[in-house]
């Protein structure tokens, strides 16, 4: 499952580039939907997916214009239409998380008691509407026990246990395909829909992941490695999509 290039080609692939591939894979098979990446690595991943195995994806310029992979405008998506697209479900967003727990509840609002937080963050933003209406994956550039926590302080993005408790209207369109961190890829393919290690980025050990995770993580007997980029994908990442190496600012390994 590892990068098939072998020797020098594999050694040359950086951790950030494995992360780009892991993010890009979130949009495989998505069809004609909007890819909404938040963060540098997911943005590179979304454009890579669009340029290779997911040509029907829609992308935005980060403002109100839908654009092709070269930035050519093809449509209009102001916030009001963006929110309608979310509730229509034709979108897969990859959000960040200040905290995420073992059932995939996510927090970007505040740390500590909500009534008077120790640290005020962004606010819930669109995390509640996103998680109940279209697939939501997460990108966490620095995997640590402060981010991967037993319980989040404020549920913004809805996790599996919370959706289940809220009833069928909440679970109807709820889906968390994957969580990507700088250490590996995670999913919820367990009987109780708690988080599972799905693949390790090459160079990372299971122990490292366990130490950096603040809850009991399901680890299968055999954990595959995250696939590496093909030579064509690597060339696209390095020369066409991200020559300024914005990916290295998020993942410093």
């Amino acid at each position, binding site marked *: 499952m590892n990068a098939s290039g072998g020797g020098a080609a594999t050694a040359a692939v950086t951790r950030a580039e494995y992360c780009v591939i892991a993010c890009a894979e979130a949009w495989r098979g998505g069809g004609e939907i909007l890819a909404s990446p938040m963060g540098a690595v997911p943005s590179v991943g979304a454009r890579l997916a669009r340029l290779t195995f997911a040509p029907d994806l829609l992308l935005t310029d980060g*403002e*109100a*214009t839908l654009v092709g992979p070269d930035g050519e405008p093809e449509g*209009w998506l*102001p*916030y*009001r239409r963006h*929110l309608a697209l*979310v*509730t229509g479900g034709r979108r897969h967003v990859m959000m960040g998380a200040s905290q995420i727990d073992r059932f995939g509840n996510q927090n970007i*609002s*505040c740390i500590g008691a*909500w*009534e*008077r*937080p*120790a*640290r*005020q*963050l*962004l*606010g*819930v*933003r*669109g*995390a*509640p*509407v996103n*998680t*109940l*209406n279209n697939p939501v994956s997460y990108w966490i550039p620095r995997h640590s026990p402060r981010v991967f926590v037993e319980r989040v302080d*404020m*549920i*913004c*993005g*809805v996790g599996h246990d*919370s*959706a289940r*408790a*809220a*009833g*069928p*209207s*909440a679970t*109807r*369109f*709820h889906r968390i395909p994957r969580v990507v961190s700088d250490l590996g890829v995670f999913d919820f393919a367990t009987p109780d829909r708690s988080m599972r290690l799905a693949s390790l980025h090459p160079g990372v050990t299971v122990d490292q992941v366990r130490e950096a995770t603040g809850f009991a993580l399901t680890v299968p007997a055999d954990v595959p490695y995250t696939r590496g980029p093909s030579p064509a994908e690597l060339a696209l990442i390095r020369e066409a999509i991200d020559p300024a190496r914005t990916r290295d600012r998020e993942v410093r390994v």
Partner: protein
Amino acid sequence: MTTAPYAHDKTMTPEEVVDRLSSGMTVGIGGWGSRRKPMALVRALLRSSVTDLTVISYGGPDVGLLAAAGRIRRLVTAFVTLDSIPLEPHYRAARERGAFALTEIDEAMFMWGLHAAANRLPFLPVRAGLGSDVMRVNPELRKVTSPYEDGEEFVAMPALRMDAALVHLNRADRLGNGRYLGPDPYFDDLFCEAADTAYVSCERLVDTRELTEDTGALPTLLVQRHSVTGVVETPGGAHFTSCAPDHPRDELFQKAYAAAAADPVAWADFAARFLPPDGDEKSYREAVRIWHEEQK
């Protein structure tokens, strides 16, 4: 044969807008984050004694400034951000000292609350919010069950009705018709329709013919006069937020604002220089111009 009488001229100054506001009101502020905020009207509000406000806003520095000045009793929002600087320092500090009550709702819930208010409905059903702590921190939120076969349960998002709305547009005429020229209308039309009174500041006041003469102008006429109470010409009135295509966000100034806002001593200096109680919009623009000269 008589000529039709002219429609009412609604032009006024920022101070005249603020004279119509009073303490305890619910005030909606248009724009989004650090984008096309009616900052000149917010600055005029800061120079007044109006306080104890319920503010409804997709928050940016409008919220930050009002929070720093202690004018907010309750804030209704989904976020407060400066966009290129993710966290608004004044908002953060105000929340961390428990300075005001907060109604924290999702971006889509906020939008449907505006729609409900504009359509004179008590609420609209939304899926957003279920399963999240938005329900925990807003115990007054109620649910509603679909009366049709599906029987689904939704959040009944209450109407976000407001006493006054403040928005900033690129162009407007004296009657209150307003036009946006940038990529996104945000929700400024809904703010005006959700409010008992609405005040539109604009980069440039033009006559009605100029407002509508370009090819493709009609869909950009975001705000109509029947939902507007007053019109104010304030060139640079969104500063330092963006007002595309008239001007981008003043990133350099925003950075200075954020740095000052994170430190009480620096903020006192910043406020004395740019937001003196006896100032006005003209003196603000001049102070900003001189500041930019100094940065060169």
